[in-house]
């Protein structure tokens, strides 16, 4: 056995002892909720063990999680849509409760089932009809909404009179920034001369924006860490 094996076995033993003490002291209740907190704490620590190095505890926790999450996502599709809408409404067809128009539900059901032929060598081509429907309709729905929500609605606030005020100055900076960034992304013209200078201004704006995104990303990940550490210190150990 290697040194790392002893370390991990020692940690597992320590985890068991800590939980024993927590249960004995009444910090954790000896019920499903208490067991849940112990399991969640164990999985959390197993995953954090990756920070030391990759190890079997991490991999076991990671793969169990993948299995549970997959089943959960499947179940939400099942309860609410595949059973809740498709199965219920199609099985009511022809009966007294059937609603006219429910017959239309057969079309997406068939398209959905055709999608599953993707893994068949012989019938795989049928899935292309489903993908064509999905991608084609998606593309069609996207075009007008992109024009109105992302192009017209985003240009409109920049088409305002400039004024000698802080707001006017900010508006001017935004206008310069948007134009410069667009010039930077316009690759059909060589970035030299005036175009080169404007595109360089675009880079500055992009750098500030990426910096802001980086700052916010650190903030987001730390927030998740704060949540998990709070769980360990408060819900599990009860020392907060």
């Amino acid at each position, binding site marked *: 056995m290697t040194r790392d094996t002893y370390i991990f076995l020692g940690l597992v033993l320590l985890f068991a002892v800590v939980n024993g003490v927590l249960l004995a002291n009444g910090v954790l209740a000896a019920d499903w909720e208490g067991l849940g907190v112990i399991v969640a704490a164990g999985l959390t620590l197993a995953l954090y063990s990756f920070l030391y190095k990759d190890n079997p505890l991490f991999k076991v926790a990671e793969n169990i999680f993948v299995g549970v*999450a997959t089943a959960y996502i499947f179940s939400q599709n099942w309860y609410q*849509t595949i059973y*809740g809408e498709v199965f219920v409404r199609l099985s009511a067809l022809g009966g007294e409760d059937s609603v006219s128009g429910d017959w239309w539900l057969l079309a997406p059901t068939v398209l959905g089932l055709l999608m599953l032929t993707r893994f068949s060598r012989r019938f795989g081509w049928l899935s292309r009809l489903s993908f064509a429907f999905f991608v084609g309709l998606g593309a069609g729905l996207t075009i007008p909404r992109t024009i109105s*929500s992302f192009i017209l609605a985003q240009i*409109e606030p920049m088409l305002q009179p400039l004024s000698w005020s802080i707001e006017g100055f900010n508006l001017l900076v935004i206008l310069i920034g948007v134009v410069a960034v667009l010039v930077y992304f316009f690759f059909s013209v060589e970035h030299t001369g005036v175009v080169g200078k404007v595109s360089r201004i675009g880079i500055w704006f992009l750098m500030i*924006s990426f910096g802001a995104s980086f700052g916010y990303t650190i903030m987001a990940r730390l927030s998740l860490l*704060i*949540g998990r550490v709070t769980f360990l*210190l408060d819900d599990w150990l009860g020392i907060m």
Partner: protein
Amino acid sequence: MIQWLMNIDRRIIFVFVFLGVALPLLANVFLPIKPTRDVIAVYDQFEKVAEDEGIVLLSFSYGASTEPEMQPMARAILRHCFSRNIKVVAVCLWPEAPGLARKVLEEIGDEFGKTYGEDYAFLGFKPGNFAVVLNMGQDFRDAFPQDNWGTPLEELALTRDVRTLRDFDFVFDLAAGDSIEFWWIPYGQEKYGFPFAGGCTAVMAPDLFPFLQSKQMVGLLGGLAGAAEYETLVGRQDKATAGMSAQSMAHLIIVAFILFGNMAFFLSRRR
């Protein structure tokens, strides 16, 4: 020495980050929080709905991976709604959201003695991303014929008269993905023109500022800091506010590391 510092074992940095988070949490320090303009705008919009005795649609578009960031936000928003007797209809556009949404709805609903079906309703998850928003806009009952437990919407007092997204006085999306930008704004707000705002993970927040200036969004709550600001406005310090001291300390440590790394880099280059 400088080279050694630049190649320091990453696990030493990990220990600093962990202590930066854990120690302020153990010390239980609450730092004063000043709400920003965009968070106040969301608060004011909910107040307006309360004055009109209106109904809001709360969309849960986040999953388990962002629970520590988003759940405190959902809790603060629901506390505000229920304390001001705002009716809440909750839907999920993310497959992992139902477990989180129902927990927070029941928890805060019980805290304020709210009745299911009259004060709030939980309609569960529908797959389809933007198609669900499109469907809700055309015919709300077509998208959600029943609640999460199979009760038809016409049997719930709260949802009996809801026909389309236009029947909501305010729509608020709690988002961890691109639901605000690519589902709700182009497929909902753009067509139906309802007041719309969102709360999102900090990663997404910088991308949404253009929609604030264009008035496509009323306001924005960005990450745990946004949730802490909302807790301050609601007047109930909870997990987000408690986390702000740890967040501040960890940010200081990372900034210090960045500055230190740069100093070492420039010193080594000069040599």
